[in-house]
């Protein structure tokens, strides 16, 4: 069966809406389970880490440039957390490196 792109988008949208809206409407009390709270606390960091590496190596034309962007991005984020600054530095590193490679 051919999958419809619009259905994909609506599936993702529905799930995202539930995630964002339910806590604001239904959950009026704080979550009590310590395990659940700890688990939820760590989930975002683990997911983003898993999605970043090693995928960043495949995103660029040369894996070496991707690796350099990863290192530069980590250093930039340690130095200043600013979102756009870190993203900009990663792009610049790839642009400069791939001009020479």
């Amino acid at each position, binding site marked *: 069966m051919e*999958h419809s*792109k*619009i259905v*994909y*988008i609506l*599936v*993702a*949208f529905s*799930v*995202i809406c539930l*995630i*964002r809206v*339910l*806590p*604001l*409407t239904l959950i009026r009390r704080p*979550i009590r389970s*310590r*395990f659940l*709270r*700890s*688990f*939820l*606390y*760590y*989930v*975002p*960091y*683990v*997911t*983003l*880490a*898993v*999605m*970043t*590496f090693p*995928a*960043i190596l495949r*995103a*660029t034309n040369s894996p070496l*440039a*991707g690796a350099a*962007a*990863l290192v530069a*991005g*980590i250093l*930039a984020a*340690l130095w200043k*957390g600013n*979102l*756009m600054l*870190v*993203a*900009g*530095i*990663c792009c*610049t590193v790839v*642009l400069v490196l*791939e*001009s020479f490679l």
Partner: protein
Amino acid sequence: MEKPGSRMRLFAQGVRDGIPIALGYFAVAFSLGIAARNAGLMPMEGFLASFLCSASAGEHALFTLIAAGAGYMETALVSLVTNARYFLMSCALSQKFAPETPLLHRVLIGTKVTDELFGLNIARPRTVQPAYSYGAMLLPVLFWAAGTASGIRMGTLLSPRIVSALSVALYGMFLAVIIPPARKSAPIAVCVAAGFLFSLAAQAVPLIAGLSEGTRTILLTVGIASAAALLFPVKEA
């Protein structure tokens, strides 16, 4: 209750605070559009996806799933995991709503809890003011959607070198979200390092390497976050 005049002023203030976010969003959404183009999306579809979802990692995962022709069930599960952090943000934000806030406001503001808009709302004095929240989300939401459509449309016009450079913008954003907290908290640093390490190792383990990228992300996240929750439980609230 606020008077109509003060509501307009709050709205305008929100719009102003949203401008720098909107500009940054446009640039990152452009790089997201390149991923959407690779998945075969048309500019209108990309606009719709971004207008509705307003989620960087979640949409990136969505486009990867579309490109791979994944099932709808897997799409729902991966969306659940890649957007789970918004659940936490909404939980935190729920404590900042005035108890009498109508349901409609809660729903509408809730659909646009992005990292940055959450930041603006949580940084407000006292309670969430809906007029301010609507003003703040206006430009970022539109620029995010327009940026994605532009990336799909113009990604082909750019040289491969520029496309290659722009494609790491999203990962830069992810790093900016996870690295600063990792610096302050050792358990988060361990989580990030474990995420990197196991994600790399998962490609070499025969049984796991055969799974789709989305399923691997779910398994690794649930496994590592559970281990972290057992090893380093957060302090009692």
